[in-house]
């Protein structure tokens, strides 16, 4: 995929915010001293009077955003996933989730691919934390096209939304011209019948590559992009369970509490005989290193997905 266009979804987030800001006066953005990294700076440049810095105080930022939402504005609050979902969890839970306020959380730098900053900044727990809040929509896009569409959909959705974007550039796999995004709907990118890979984020591109490789070996792999982790598209998951009988989940997140567990729960409760294996971070902290090397080391790769599928 050497000649494929690559863009980090945090870049997409900043660009989408700018576009959204042009169309909607009620969009405001909060950041916590990271606007260059979260790319809300792109919005700030275009609409300086609608971008508010909260300083390094993420907990306050989330409750401030809640107050602004109660007045009828549509705030997007941004920081790194570690601080948006981790540090500010309780503010998100009590001031945004409990009153079901219309705050959109744009969390960047999710997962291991944060790279050199190391474990303190590599948040692999955000899906688990955010999924546990009633009424919270939790999403993670696979590429630039999906990320931008997701931001637009989040604005149209009434209620709290958590979106996780990545630091590292990822291949653009969607064709912008004929693409539409719907919250809560998964997307079959490749049909297949031997095994289904249900992935999100940067693992979607890896899953597609794995499917290509395995196709040459006579293994038919269905690839599902599950950008919305909550509410989960159970219908699509169970269809895969019925038709393939084997599912591999793949996410840049702990195997605890994320997409993998959500899929496991749906399949287990359905009674459909289907084995599920989870590709993710195996209950351990990350460490410093280049993103690409870390992804390989932690098994968040095409090679590992192939290994797991072959070991069924």
């Amino acid at each position, binding site marked *: 995929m050497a000649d494929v266009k690559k863009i980090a979804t945090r870049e997409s987030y900043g660009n989408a915010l700018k576009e959204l800001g042009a169309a909607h006066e009620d969009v405001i953005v909060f950041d916590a001293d990271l606007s260059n990294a979260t790319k809300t700076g792109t919005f700030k440049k275009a609409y300086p009077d609608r971008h508010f810095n909260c300083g390094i105080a993420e*907990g306050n930022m*989330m409750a401030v955003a809640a107050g602004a939402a*109660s007045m009828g504005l549509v705030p997007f609050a941004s920081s790194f996933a570690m601080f948006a979902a981790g540090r500010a969890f309780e503010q998100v839970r*009590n001031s945004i989730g409990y009153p079901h306020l219309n705050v959109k959380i744009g969390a960047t730098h999710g997962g291991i691919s944060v790279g050199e900053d190391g474990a303190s900044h590599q948040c692999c727990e955000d899906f688990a934390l955010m999924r546990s809040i009633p009424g919270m929509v939790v999403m993670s896009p696979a590429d630039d096209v999906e990320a931008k569409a997701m931001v637009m959909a989040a604005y149209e959705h009434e209620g709290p939304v958590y979106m996780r974007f990545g630091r590292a550039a990822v291949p653009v796999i969607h064709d912008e011209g004929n693409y539409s995004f719907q919250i809560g709907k998964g997307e079959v990118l490749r049909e297949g019948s031997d095994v289904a890979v249900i992935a999100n984020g940067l693992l979607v591109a890896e899953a597609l590559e794995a499917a290509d490789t395995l196709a040459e070996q006579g293994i038919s792999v269905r690839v599902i992009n599950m950008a919305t982790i909550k509410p989960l598209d159970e219908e699509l998951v169970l269809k895969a369970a019925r038709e393939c009988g084997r599912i591999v989940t793949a996410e840049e997140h702990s195997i605890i509490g994320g997409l993998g567990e959500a899929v496991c729960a749906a399949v287990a409760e359905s009674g459909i005989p289907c084995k599920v294996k989870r590709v993710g971070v195996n209950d351990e902290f990350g460490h410093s290193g280049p993103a690409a090397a870390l992804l390989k080391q932690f098994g968040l790769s095409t090679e590992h997905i192939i290994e797991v599928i072959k070991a069924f």
Partner: protein
Amino acid sequence: MTETEKKKLQIAACRVRMGVIEGVHAAKAGHPGGSLSAADLFTYLYFKELNIDPARPKDPDRDRFVLSKGHTAPGLYAALALRGFFPVEDLKTLRQIGSYLQGHPNMNTVPGVDMSTGSLGQGVSAACGMALAAKHMGKTCRVYTLLGDGEIEEGEVWEAMMFAHHHKLDNLCVIVDNNGLQIDGRVADVMSPYPIPEKLRAFGFEVAEIDGHDFDQMEAAFAKAKETKGVPFAIVMKTTKGKGVSYMENQVGWHGKAPNDAEYEQAMGELRAQLAGLEAE
């Protein structure tokens, strides 16, 4: 303020206190101490200060009040009910299954409640967000928030204070109920927040120090708050925890405990006597 007006407020405050006791007694749980210390403030806000209309609790241009010290919901509920937001009878359903009067304020169930609170430190941040949004939207409404003196031990409170000054929220009025007690004892012994006015001034606030049971002083402080431009305003009010019920006054044990039937009778007897005294004068 005229003597007649003051008398009306004192009578209303006495009824708010009775509402607190009714609610907490019926619930067999809740927080009477801090509800009573702030009862005069709740009364002043809802019967004099706030631009609100019980018939239109969601009016987009209304003033906002955020009870950052959300555990004193019984006091807020009593003031809201007496002001006409919902039936006073309903105060007895406090904390019961099926009641809209949750243990801590819920903006989606209680008419007149502007923000769901209860987890200390978050209400003041939400109030900052409201004040910022009001300014951004060109609204002239004002935002008020009440914090406990124990609550200001939360770090988030000072993040919010910094934010309020940085963003020049002169439509925000922060009130601190300095009743001197928190669950584990005197605030001075548990984790001293003192000196409070100096801390607020250091964070860029204009500060008024008042007796939180004196309506004349409240009137002067809120007038000064409205005149203050360019910086946020804070009122630090000295109060008595449990004010109005003799055996609860300044007793740390009455932070979060309901009176039993005999204690309820005594409290209501004392408050009825105070009310009769006020009405007889």
